């Protein structure tokens, strides 16, 4: 472990900026929202900011992107397909451990299954990641329940923990170590590990009683989801509150569903676009012709939570699909974010009355 001053950190990021496009948390001045954004002005970076409202997923898996471009002329029967170059070095600064965990889930899913997703890979190839320990939880956080925080364990190039006026830095890769060496950072003594552990312990203990209490319930809900022993009435109750907006999928650091569409341009070219999608939509499974194997909204809702929590789905991420960031609870018009769903399942198990 090493020590890094705020001044050195600034220089280090500036240095990274020479090679990488810099992304990090900034504030929208008027609304106060913390946005994980491409920083054209590095002074906007705020490492003390709360967890960003948007996960960094959009950097590797954009809301809408062109994955192919082609031109076909029926008269001359000429077809030309152009593969786009999506490779661009990017540095993600100040990633919270939940979001880093989410990114690793996406890695395992997009890169680690039978096939590699070439488009994701192109975005992922040249990435520099600096994670940032959460000194205290933010409202709605429950990463302690999903084993994804408050400090990063893997997947970073550099990991920062604010300790007093400086940062404790750990390298997680050769790239990261090289940067530490280049800046000749002073090594922190053995007491640094103790200090870091204390900081993390303090953070964990300041989590809401709610979050800690839920720890047991998330695993019990997982168990129930896996075995399918959840009454249809529970899903129906949840389904009734769903506004079918898709937001839970769009804000989830691990959701990977997408749609592909062709957009014909006036120029005669066609763009093949890939956009975010959500399994909560009715048209998601619809087939050409008159057949939709998955219909009622509660059924679709059920699928999503199954995907996030059940054991069998966890296999593809090597961990639960939920990283405890709490964003789904904040964006849901129907107030059925994952924590509430766990609560409803808990009520079913214990027989507690609802409101």
């Amino acid at each position, binding site marked *: 472990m090493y020590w890094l001053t705020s001044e050195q950190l600034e220089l280090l990021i500036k240095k990274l900026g020479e090679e990488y496009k810099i992304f990090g948390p900034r504030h929208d001045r008027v609304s106060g929202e913390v946005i994980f954004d491409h920083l054209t002005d590095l002074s906007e970076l705020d490492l003390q900011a709360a967890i960003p409202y948007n996960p960094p997923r959009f950097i590797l898996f954009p809301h*809408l992107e062109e994955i192919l471009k082609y031109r076909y002329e029926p008269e001359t029967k000429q077809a030309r397909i152009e593969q786009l170059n999506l490779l661009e070095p990017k540095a993600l600064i100040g990633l919270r451990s939940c979001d880093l965990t989410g990114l690793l889930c996406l890695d395992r899913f997009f890169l680690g299954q039978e096939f590699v997703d070439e488009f994701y890979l192109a975005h992922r190839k040249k990435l520099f990641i600096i994670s940032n320990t959460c000194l205290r939880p933010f409202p709605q956080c429950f990463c302690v329940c999903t084993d994804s925080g408050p400090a990063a364990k893997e997947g970073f190039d550099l990991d920062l923990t604010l300790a007093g006026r400086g940062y404790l830095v750990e390298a997680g890769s050769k790239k990261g170590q090289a940067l530490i060496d280049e800046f000749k950072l002073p090594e922190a003594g053995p007491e640094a590990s103790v200090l870091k552990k204390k900081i993390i312990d303090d953070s964990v203990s300041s989590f809401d009683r709610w979050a800690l209490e839920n720890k047991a319930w998330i695993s019990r809900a997982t168990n129930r989801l896996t075995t399918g022993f959840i009454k249809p009435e529970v899903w129906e109750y949840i389904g009734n509150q769903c506004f079918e907006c898709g937001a839970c999928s769009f804000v989830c650091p691990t959701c990977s569903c997408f749609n592909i569409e062709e957009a014909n341009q006036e120029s005669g070219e066609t763009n093949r676009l890939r956009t975010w999608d959500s399994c909560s939509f009715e048209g998601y499974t619809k087939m050409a012709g*008159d057949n939709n194997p998955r219909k009622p909204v509660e059924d679709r809702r059920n699928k999503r939570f199954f995907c996030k929590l059940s054991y069998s789905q966890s296999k593809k991420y090597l961990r639960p699909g939920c990283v405890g960031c709490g964003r789904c609870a904040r964006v849901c018009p129907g*107030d059925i974010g994952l924590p509430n769903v766990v609560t409803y399942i808990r009520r079913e198990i214990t027989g507690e009355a609802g409101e």
Partner: protein
Amino acid sequence: MPYYRGICNFCGTGCGHLLRVEGNRVRGVYPLSGHPLSRGRLCVRGWHIHELLQTEDRINQPLIKDQGCFRQVSLETAIDFVARKIKNISGREVAFLGSPRASNEENYLLGKFARSVIKTNNLSLSSDAGQEESARVLLEGCGWPAMTGSLAELRQADFILVVGGDLTKQNPIIASEIHYAHRAGAFLATISPRKTQMARLSQVHLRPRPGTIFYLLQGLARVLADDRKIDLDYLSRFTANSQSFIDGLKLVEIDKVVEITGIEKEQIVRLAGQLAESDSAYAFYPTGVQSLDSRTMAALFNLFLLAGKIGRRGSGLNPVTGVSNLLGSYDLGVSPVFLPGYAAVTDEQAWEKLENFWRVRLDRWPGRNVDACLSDQEAIKALFIVDHDEEIIRHVNRINQLDLVVYFGAYHNSFASLADVIFPRTSYVEGDGTYTNSERRVQLAQKKIDPPAGVRPLWEILTALARALGHNWNYHSAEDIMSEISQLVPYYSGLTYEKLTTRLGLKWPCDDLHPEGTDCLLAEDAGRRFQFIPAGWPGQSLAYDQEIQKDFPFKLVVGRSNYFWHQNSVMKRTFIPKREYNALLLLYPRGFVEISEEDARRLGLREKQLVRVVAESAEVRLAVRISRDILSGMLYIPYFIDEMIPEFLHRQVVDLEKNEEFFLPVRLEKVG
């Protein structure tokens, strides 16, 4: 910094969002957590607004139709063409159709152009009858033409009543606020013949027969008055005619209400009791298409006034606008009955004030709305339209006969092709403008990307046209226009771009007394007493015509759904919302009519069976969709014209567009 703050332009909720811009294209959207109303939520439409902007149907050049074909011309040529043509047409023979999606600045300037340059008062929006009625009712009753309560305080409410159409579909984020308030403890009741999602979320759902909500509301008022559960102090301090209203309620017989509406007396008494006992109470109803009729709105206003819930903190009557800037368009007088700031066209002083302000003589001849103008074979010779308005396409033949049709729009569509001249205008992300949402919040949306070369903002085109017609207009930005609006419209007098740039909107009235806007409209500020609106009790005439019922035993109601929103003219340019809409149609490729389980069983109808829906002057074939959402004796068709029921609705559409309280008597016949 690719994420730019903005305002969603779909419905009248006006949610805050961030648009992700890359290389002068909008490539994504994200909700704005700090927005005071939307608080970080968006609906399915809002989450896909960037898809809408991917379309390549852009109009990039001014076009003039020449022997049936459009040819590209310069802006100067197009302006010169319109200026020459319009000189031969008298002002009264020209009509203007504004867009409830255009900004306040654009709507104000369109109105000024129509009234002061062309000298016509034929100026309106379309499919907005409910908004006009709502403004009239509220102006008469309390003097404010819009939402009197505050959505910011809604989560502390005790009692919420939702009347009519499905807010979860029309304004999902306002519906979400209601849902949150309910979960925080508010008693939530819905009055709607159809079992909407809002009804499903409510504790109490009263399902009066189609067309009878008015009677139910009158019944509730009668119970309130009878049980003396009214605040006499409030009534004597703030209302002008409470005694005559209460006396009039004696005509309302509860037994009759029960008979007409089909709602049990105990339910009426209980709901009235809940309202009376609540400290903080709100009522919501949608305006625009799918609204209530004015009589029902008046009954709802009266009920809330009697309960002492108008002009009080923590309470209010909240009409909800369906389209982004519908309220702002009315605020700025895009209406045949209101001048900017809701001055009545019958008010001579208002005309004089306007003449002095604009320094031009105006014609006071009463204008009409575009439907009235086009229904009359002789009325007009020229029509100016802003943006897509496919719904007036049923007047295609009449429009084709006009001498001049001028279209200002961003995208090609079947309506634009009817025009003689097309002016390309910027989309809402390509220029500055303010938009006024349902809760009177005026929000500034700033320019995020550059428009294509040759595409100008509407205000710039109108300014050039006015100058070509000899008026010395001098606007250099949308901000210039807002500063003029603030001098003319009292509600907007305290609004400046400087203020709006650093705030997430300000709620009018924003003036010297309320420099930071007004959250909740208070009786003390009204400057007048509130009036109960005589709504009457039609007595016998309300009996459902026995004869009609024999031939047409079903009441057909037409409603809206998330994805069919605004007749699809917008949704069809997206991917995912369009897919969702197609998903439902794929299950029912011929379109569908919903029928109750009970009626389906009685008539021996199977799911997806083809039936004929027969009305007096038209019929349509649709597949049966058996639904638990509707009452026996009722049928329901979602509201989207082109794809589902063209001929049928084209014949019956005038009535169906009025409001959701309207129903069409029909019968069902099996096919084959």
